[in-house]
């Protein structure tokens, strides 16, 4: 079985898995875990989009 996601899909999958582990291991109570996981996910995806735009503008 071969799986070939797009770059952005790969970012989303990576961010979802890593944020889950970060949220559970770095905070103590479930609400704080959820909040921290969502925060990490947003930072992963947001920074990927931002860097993509920076690279796009540099390349032009």
């Amino acid at each position, binding site marked *: *079985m*071969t*799986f*070939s*996601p797009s770059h952005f899909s*790969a970012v989303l*999958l*990576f961010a*979802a*898995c*890593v944020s*889950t*582990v970060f949220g*559970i*291991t770095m905070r*103590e109570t479930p609400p704080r875990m959820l909040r921290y996981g969502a925060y990490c996910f947003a930072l992963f995806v947001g920074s990927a989009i931002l860097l993509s735009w920076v690279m796009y503008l540099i390349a032009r």
Partner: protein
Amino acid sequence: MVATEDKKATGQTTGEGFVYLPLIAGWLVPGAGHFLLRKWGRGALLAIAIVCMFGLGLAMQGRLYTKADDILDMLGLVGDLGSGLLYIVSRAIGLGNETVQLTTADYGTRFIVVAGLLNVIAAVDAHNLRTGRKA
């Protein structure tokens, strides 16, 4: 008193079992350390996240590091070994040993390494729960 201190020094506490068991179990099987501590929800989420990441890496035709010829290979091998039995079983059945010229294969290799590193974090978290450092 002396006997209790001796037991603590060797990782044993009276009536509570081996202190490092969740750490070792968590390293070998993702989430197992939390399951031993009856943290079922956390353990299940950790297991799903780590096994999915490892599986996605293999599905993207990522490579498992097998040699430590240079420093980067060595770091990759250390990361892969963090997955415990997932890495050992995958190598035993011959997964992730082919060189594929695909962009996603390179992503897959990174997914596998990161899954191993996340598993180490999860195992250390289980150890912290066991020792009472974390609630």
